[in-house]
């Protein structure tokens, strides 16, 4: 029966897997092998978990608000709120998403950072998404 492992953000100590090839001629004492436990890259698991969680939240949010007529309902939708709860960890994920597909997801950046990229107030969503992506790539947006 298949099982699903839900990997919460791990708090494992960073460890290293050590592999040794040992040859024995029969007479020599076997060298001691350090049987360290399997060590995992903490960052890798956290990033994978975060990306997966973010993707799920965005998909659900888009489905739930696709035909929504009111901005207040779009940004108060429960999955959008969960994206906001990811706080600054979500910034690079949002940037990648709006770089590929400009959308009102950019509003999450306004709320998380408290900043705006609209200088004239007449930019379109596509234009401000490009501004955010450019600012991030130039290191002008702090994430974590």
């Amino acid at each position: 029966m298949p099982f699903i492992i839900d990997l919460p953000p791990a708090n494992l100590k960073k460890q290293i897997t050590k592999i040794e090839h040992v040859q024995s001629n029969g007479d020599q004492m076997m060298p001691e092998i350090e049987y360290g436990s399997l060590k995992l890259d903490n960052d890798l698991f956290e990033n994978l978990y975060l990306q997966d969680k973010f993707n799920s939240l965005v998909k659900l949010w888009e489905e739930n608000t696709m035909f929504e007529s009111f901005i207040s309902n779009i940004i108060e939708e429960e999955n959008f709120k969960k994206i906001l709860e990811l706080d600054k960890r979500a910034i690079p994920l949002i940037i990648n998403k709006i770089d590929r597909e400009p959308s009102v997801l950019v509003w999450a950046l306004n709320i998380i950072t408290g900043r705006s990229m609209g200088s004239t107030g007449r930019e379109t969503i596509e234009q401000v998404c490009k501004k955010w992506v450019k600012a991030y790539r130039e290191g002008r947006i702090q994430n974590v």
Partner: protein
Amino acid sequence: MINSEENRQKIIKAFQKLKNDNSFKIVDRANPNYNCIAWAANVTDCWWESLPKENRPFKGLDGVKRDWPFNVDDEFSLRTLTEIFTHLGYVICENGEYEKGYKKVAFYAKDGEAKHAARQLTSGKDAGVWSSKLGSSFLIHHGTAESIESKVYGEVALFMKKSML
């Protein structure tokens, strides 16, 4: 292609009555620069939704301007929609049938709450066809106002019309 079968099916899934509407057509891509209420008033650079009077227009989010015009109350309802469109020269009318020389709008409500507005086209081969902006999503044409009655937007609650003369 904007009027692709994939896009059409996404919309029909939510608005089942469009399945049998021969006039149903997606005419523009998803555009978050305006919503259905603004579109019904022929405005395409602003979201019209209720806002506190001291916050109009509101530009707190990038790429979008929000407004609630004519100093109407901070309430999204059939009452305030009627008030806004009265300011625009509309009067309440009986139905959504096309009348030459008039443009019409329809308001939708679900469980007593206003949800959506659509407008009727008046020129050329599309005269009489209805047009709806689906949130930040597609702009569509549909044959009757009733074609987009659904769990999403409820039912047509009110029609208004304005003379074009």
